């Protein structure tokens, strides 16, 4: 597989729609993911995440619209797309009477890997996923975490440039989740493009370069967490702790044009400020100039969970 000449987005959804009868599982969803970045796909259950991921992975057909992997249509060139894609579904079956190494060897052969290339990839995947000590263990006897590793290993076996991971952290213990976060960042730094869906929003915020929030099939917001937060929150809330003279500080802030709603909560001052970083810096500088002894000055940003709750309405379909 050559990686050379294509410079466009590695993943592209263009007005993608998928209807199941009257239900619009995916409704005109469009976004792009550039090479080497991690895109988090967030939404409640039944929002349309899995359906759009399955369309990308050539397992479903869209009602209308297009899905591209490395510029190739997953509808019209599925075989070429499959060679470039590693898909990890949220639920997957395994074979009886098969152990980990045989399972991975089978998929390596199925992806057309032969000879040294196959043994090299098998060794790499075994070590990368930490499955080597368990390689002769039957799959049915593996824990949930180990099965997830095995499935990730299967998705990586042919070294695809794009990974689509549907709820890879579901059911994992905290340590396994942290390890998964590290591995995803490591894969992204190796140039792999990753589309990942999860319900654990704090983790997504840490590992994703950009996110998309989807509900009832519609993409409600796309961008970096910061961009989405800023769009939702034109004014920023600031928390200030001063050494003394709280009333003087309140009076000072009340006189500032860009400051709104200054109040004291638990001996700390909170106020809203319109604008971005320059306005925030200007207020701090003005307070210092006015000889107000500032102990702490920090913006109180909404977490990804707050953003998610603000954007979605909790509708199900």
């Amino acid at each position, binding site marked *: 597989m050559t990686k050379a000449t294509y410079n466009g987005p590695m993943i592209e959804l263009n007005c993608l729609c998928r209807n199941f009868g009257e239900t619009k599982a995916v409704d005109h969803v469009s976004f792009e993911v550039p090479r080497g970045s991690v895109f988090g796909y967030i939404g409640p259950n039944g929002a349309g995440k899995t359906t759009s991921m399955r369309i990308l992975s050539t397992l479903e057909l869209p009602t209308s619209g297009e899905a591209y992997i490395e510029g190739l249509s997953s509808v019209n060139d*599925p075989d070429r797309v*499959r060679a470039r894609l590693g898909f990890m579904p949220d639920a997957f079956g395994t074979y009886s009477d098969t152990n980990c190494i045989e399972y991975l*060897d089978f998929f390596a052969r*199925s992806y057309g890997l032969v000879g040294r290339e196959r*043994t090299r990839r098998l060794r790499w995947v075994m070590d990368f996923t930490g499955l080597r000590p368990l390689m002769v263990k039957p799959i049915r006897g593996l824990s949930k975490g180990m099965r997830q590793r095995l499935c990730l290993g299967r998705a990586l076996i042919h070294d695809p440039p794009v990974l689509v991971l549907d709820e890879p952290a579901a059911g994992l213990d905290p340590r396994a989740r942290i390890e*998964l976060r590290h591995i995803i960042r490591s894969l992204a730094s190796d140039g792999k493009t990753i589309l990942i869906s999860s319900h654990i929003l704090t983790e997504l915020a840490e590992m994703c370069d950009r996110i998309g929030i989807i509900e009832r099939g519609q993409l409600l917001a796309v961008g970096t967490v910061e961009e989405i937060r800023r769009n939702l929150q034109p004014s920023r809330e600031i928390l200030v702790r001063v050494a003394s003279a709280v009333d003087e500080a309140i009076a000072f802030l009340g006189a500032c044009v860009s400051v709104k709603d200054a109040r004291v909560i638990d001996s700390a001052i909170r106020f809203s400020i319109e604008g971005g970083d320059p306005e925030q810096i200007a207020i701090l500088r003005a307070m210092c100039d006015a000889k107000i002894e500032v102990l702490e000055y920090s913006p109180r940003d909404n977490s990804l969970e707050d953003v998610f709750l603000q954007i979605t309405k909790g509708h199900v379909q």
Partner: protein
Amino acid sequence: MSSDVKILPENDHPLLVDTTGEGVWGWIDRTSEKISKSLNPILIKEARQALKSKQFAVTFFLLLLASWVWMILGVVSMAPDIYFVPSGKYLMTGYYFLLAIPMMAMVPLSAHRSLAAELDEGTYELLAITKLSSLRIVSGKLGSALLQMLVYFAALVPSLTFCYLLRGVDMPMIAATIALVFAVSILLSTFALLLATAVQNRAGQIFTVLALLAVILFSESLCAAFILGVVFEQQIYWEWEAIVFTFLFGLVTISCMVMFVRAASARIAPVTENRSTVLRWIMFAQQLIWIASIATLGLWYEDYEPVNFGIMILGGYWLVMGMLMLGESAELSPRVLRTLPKTKFGRMMLLWFCPGPGTGFMFATTSGIAGMFSLGFVSLAFSDGSNVVSPVLFAVLMTGYLLMYLGATRLIVLPLARRFGISFVLPCSVMLGLLMLGIMFPSILMVVTTGSPSTNYGSQEFTNWIWTLDEAFSYQPNPVLSAGFLAFTTGLVFFVLNLFLLIREFSYRRVSVPQRVIQVEAENETSIALDA
């Protein structure tokens, strides 16, 4: 999981070791690797699984045990005559049944379960996104079934040799038994694979297993009757007649195997793929083989009856195939549109082979008419002398039924498909309803007009295909003649009505290959050239 990959020693599992060893073992290792490159991965996986499975182990050892028990019982019960009288045939009868049960029952059932489980348990989707095509998946399953057959057969080889040494059976007898058991077993396995793809849910799979069991029982009894009555009774003759017919009907069997495998792979292939063209070519080839077989039979015996039988089977075949083709989607994916014929001549000759219900209707009707009349015209080369309905008239009758029932089904399915969506269930249900209605309609009409159903066959019974065919095979040419022309005229009306609704599918044009695909192909070619 860690991104800091720690490379452990390589010699901890054979699958992680490169085949670079020296000496004889190294050579064996490298040769095995070379051979395994060309093997189907499904076959390798299934062989690994089967060798570990309890079901296989239990069946294999039970087979061995049963063959020993039968040998001991046979020897003891036939002693002391066994020393003087040729008694291999009696033991061989038991060994046939011992071999037939695992080969003709266990192997097809396990092939069915294997593919059905892939579809049912979610492992097929993981396979579908690899480089394996649906055909390779199905043929891998068939390969695994063949491997199991060989292992079971190997368990009984010493027993067959023992039978030969006891005399009473000769080599052609043993070879014919083995060949027949293998052929039926492969045919049943391919049919089992097709049934496994017919329904993709557990409730439906219970019905398919029941259907498969019924077919297995039927085939086992038919095969047993043939082997006990023909093979073991030394009824195999080295005559041209036997050789030619064995060859022709062997070809029919092989074409059925190919058709089942291709149909199973088409059932599980993505809908964007062209799932029809290959199947249509196979149908075309099957028709040619059938015509050759029946024409040879008719000319050899100078008899109209086998020719009429051949025409009837051909009419039924195209009715069923046409009905299934009506379940295809008229929407062609750009991937399929890229492969449409380029030239006008190509469009004229090959468009019938492209997917779609309209092209399918035309393909089934035109092929059916051509095939049936070809057989009909073959009969002009000889005179039967009996009072049997002439094959040409029979071809007219069957053509009428094909056009009438298939044309009416299409006219009804077209609006219904818009409401309920397209699938092969809809045309099957409509066709079944029409065939039933065709039987009942004349009787209902007679009851309404005269107060009682007709007891004598007349041309008004032409829609009642069962009665008409019964009359045709009962040496009653005259009423069948008028019924045949009535059926043909009605069929022609339905055919013409359908022609007006076909225009859309014939206006499809080939589309160009996307630039990105051309670019990728060029990159692949460059990398292959660099590797070379």
